[in-house]
């Protein structure tokens, strides 16, 4: 691990590095955004 594998890292390190980005900005799909918008019926 440069820090199963992703991006040359073990899963623990990969998930930590991905988690940093999710804390900057959460992830949501456009499909769910549209559903929420339509509900807001």
């Amino acid at each position, binding site marked *: 691990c440069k820090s199963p594998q992703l991006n040359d890292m073990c899963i*623990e390190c990969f*998930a930590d590095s991905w988690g940093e980005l999710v804390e900057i900005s959460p992830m949501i799909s456009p499909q769910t*955004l549209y559903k929420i918008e339509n509900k807001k019926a």
Partner: protein
Amino acid sequence: MREIFFDENSIDNGLRQAYKKIVKEGFDSYIVLAIGNGGEHIAKRLEKHWNYKDKVSCVLKNGDVQILDDSKIKGNKIFLCDDTTITGKTFLNIFKKLSELGADDIKLLSLLMRRNSFIVPNIFIFEIEADTKVYFPWSDYPIRTYSKGIVRKISCEDCKKDFKCGDSNIDKNSLSDFFKNQEHSLAKVYLVEDKGEICSIVQFYEKPLDGYKGLFLDIIATAEGKNGNNYASTLLKLISYYMFYHEFSFIYGYAFDNEGLIGMYKKRGFEVIGSIQDPHYGTLHKIVIVNGTKDIKENVIATIRPHI
């Protein structure tokens, strides 16, 4: 997905019986070539039954075949040993290399062969279905650790609770919506609960696309005030392991438009394979990470790009 665990006893019994076939077929005068770590383990255990005249090691690194002490190959008959034949493609590279080095004859023994393998070993002991994961005593066992809080599925009782992440769009999606999706839409919804509070939540779906199995990460968010505690990382670990141990080829999702953020996703191995413009929410970028231990990244992306 099925899992098979081999113990030392079943391997020893298999190799003892296989050795009788090795003698019967006249392969016992061959030089043993152990392929990778698995092959070394097989060769070592074969030694208990077979006093082979010599052994050569073969290391596989990033698809390259390196035969240590290749001076022993020329003019000799070579007996390859490995623990598993999955597609057999690796063996083709090794056969080619051995032929170039002047091997007189090449035979292959594999403890097990996955059904539909391109290569059928000269001797193999067990045959397994395509979706079977195999563990030997020398394998890395699939140990997973989730040390933050309690990781669990969403339950009916959670519908009474509150979850706010600070993003006005996601916060319109109540815990009842998550629960309904789990119960009626095949969504996988997991959360981290710590000290009685829901600290992070993820919702994802299994999604087959054109011959590949993928995971669609719909929502992941951390509760307000809970950042910096690795709660989201815990759930991302869960979905990443889910991809590996259930043999999925990729995970995809959407990230909000933010030049710095998208750059950081690329740095972490994600591919941006498209964008969606929305008058309410701005631009959302489709991002994908591919399970490189299972598939070739470029092939997966070329196949799924038109569909997602």
